[in-house]
């Protein structure tokens, strides 16, 4: 049988996928921690175990993400943007725009009917528009991410968020708390601020529907809703959004292997 693996080592989370043909047979997500190499090994073991395979069963592995070079067992590395595009394409072949909301940065990608990247843009460094902001603020408000979304949905008048910096978003939230602003308005304000920053990225690549949101940020319903109202479209969400890039890497691995054969 032909199994292929994709590993996506991000700054905050590491994800892995094993596919057979285009079927996901195993996937796994862990915190990257401070050692990419170790994280990659953990994922590799967990994946093969879950798939009931030995490591040699996996014919080819492609690694992507900021830690890609630390994946010793990968055949080669590939750009996370290309992987994300391929991953989305195999899940939603009709997709033309992708928003990948990672922990620190956000990418907007355009693709054509073959899943080829036709345009993309990445968030500016100092306005790190990523899921981190939500994690940080949820922590301030002492609510988990589910609760965060729940209270945000209740807000009548979300606050305005000035800064794009995740760390200063935190100070801002704290000062708002001290001003006695209700939690839900802060939560909703964060989502809206993030959604706005993401939507201007998407506009830069000239969004075309259907539009998919993936990456860790796609786990936040409230963010998705905020983004949908900013962009005035319905967003498609993959079943396990944070592994989309790893999945794409695995698909690429399969393609690469078959190309080598022929």
């Amino acid at each position, binding site marked *: 049988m032909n199994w292929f693996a994709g590993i996506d080592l991000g700054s905050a989370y590491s994800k892995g996928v094993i596919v057979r043909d285009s079927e996901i047979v195993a996937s796994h997500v862990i915190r990257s*921690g401070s*050692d990419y190499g170790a994280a990659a090994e953990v994922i590799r073991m967990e994946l093969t175990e879950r798939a009931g395979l030995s490591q040699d069963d996996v014919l080819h592995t492609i690694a992507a993400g900021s830690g890609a070079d630390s994946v010793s067992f990968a055949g080669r590395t590939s750009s996370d943007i290309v992987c994300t595009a391929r991953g989305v394409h195999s899940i939603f072949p009709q997709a033309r725009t992708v928003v990948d909301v990672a922990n620190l940065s956000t990418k907007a990608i355009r693709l054509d009917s073959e899943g080829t990247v036709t345009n993309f843009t990445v968030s500016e*460094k100092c306005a790190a528009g990523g899921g981190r902001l939500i994690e940080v603020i949820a922590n301030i408000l*002492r609510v988990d991410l589910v609760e965060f979304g729940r209270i945000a949905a209740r807000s009548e008048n979300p606050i305005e968020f000035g800064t794009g*910096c995740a*760390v200063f978003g935190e100070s801002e939230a704290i000062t708002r*708390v001290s001003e006695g602003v209700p939690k839900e308005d802060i939560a909703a304000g964060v989502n809206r601020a993030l959604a706005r920053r993401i939507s201007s990225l998407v506009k830069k690549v000239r969004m075309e529907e259907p539009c998919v949101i993936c990456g860790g940020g796609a786990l936040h319903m409230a963010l998705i809703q905020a983004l949908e109202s900013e962009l005035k479209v319905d967003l498609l969400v993959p079943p396990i959004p944070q592994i989309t890039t790893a999945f794409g890497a695995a698909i690429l691995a399969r393609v690469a292997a078959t190309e080598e054969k022929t």
Partner: protein
Amino acid sequence: MYYAGVDIGSTMTKVVVIDGSDDLLSVIKGPTGPEHRQLANQAMAQALEQASLQIDDIAFIVATGYGRINVPFADLQMTELSCHARGVSILFPDARTAIDIGGQDAKCMKISSGRLVNFVMNDKCAAGTGRFLEVTAAALGINLEEMGDLSLRATERVEISSLCTVFAQQEVVALLSRGEKLENIVAGIHSALAGRISTLARRLAIEPRVVLTGGGAKNTGMVEAMKEKLGCAISVPEEPLITGAIGAAVLGKEICLKTADEHGTPPAKPRRLERATFFKEEYP
């Protein structure tokens, strides 16, 4: 007569009660949560209990810090800058410069005859605040407390871009996976932050004695780095966290006595602590 200072900082909340001769009767410290009002009441109640006093025994209460507006029972609110300056000058009467490395900002204060006369603050970029340490520590998978001792074991110092806290996380992880020694990275982190803060401090002509307060002052590695960057000796209070609260209490005392002189009686204000529990869900 007794006086209290309540300092609701971005990460920690501190309350002190002092008597007429500035002796500490109680010191309460706890993490700042999202419900400041309850927190203030709760912490105050604990402080009173520790000093075995009633709320009405307290002649004057000054609130300071981020959450100062959420202390319902306070007689006066003052900025953390004035309170820090006053607190430092109480602990070190000859102090001329105070540097406070807090969780959300860094402040440098000039002190003259026990009062704040000038200040600079960094709250523009997190790279110059205590958060830089917390965030990078987390990225390295170590505790904030370990950092100081770790950095003292450094054989050399790794250059860390002090540009941005958010991206410094990635940088330090990359350094680790490149095989840099953990202690050398930590030393690099301290020196990067110390560089930022000493530059900020230089906006005020620095005069000895220089006193370092706030969470950053509890970090030996940070203190060493600051000494090096400033090129002068640095004093650190026994408990650097409560400087602001002490200053608040003392300023309260002084205001109280002043009005007492002017009007014969100190400003009496009936006050009551709301029954409080930590993190009570505010929104049913």
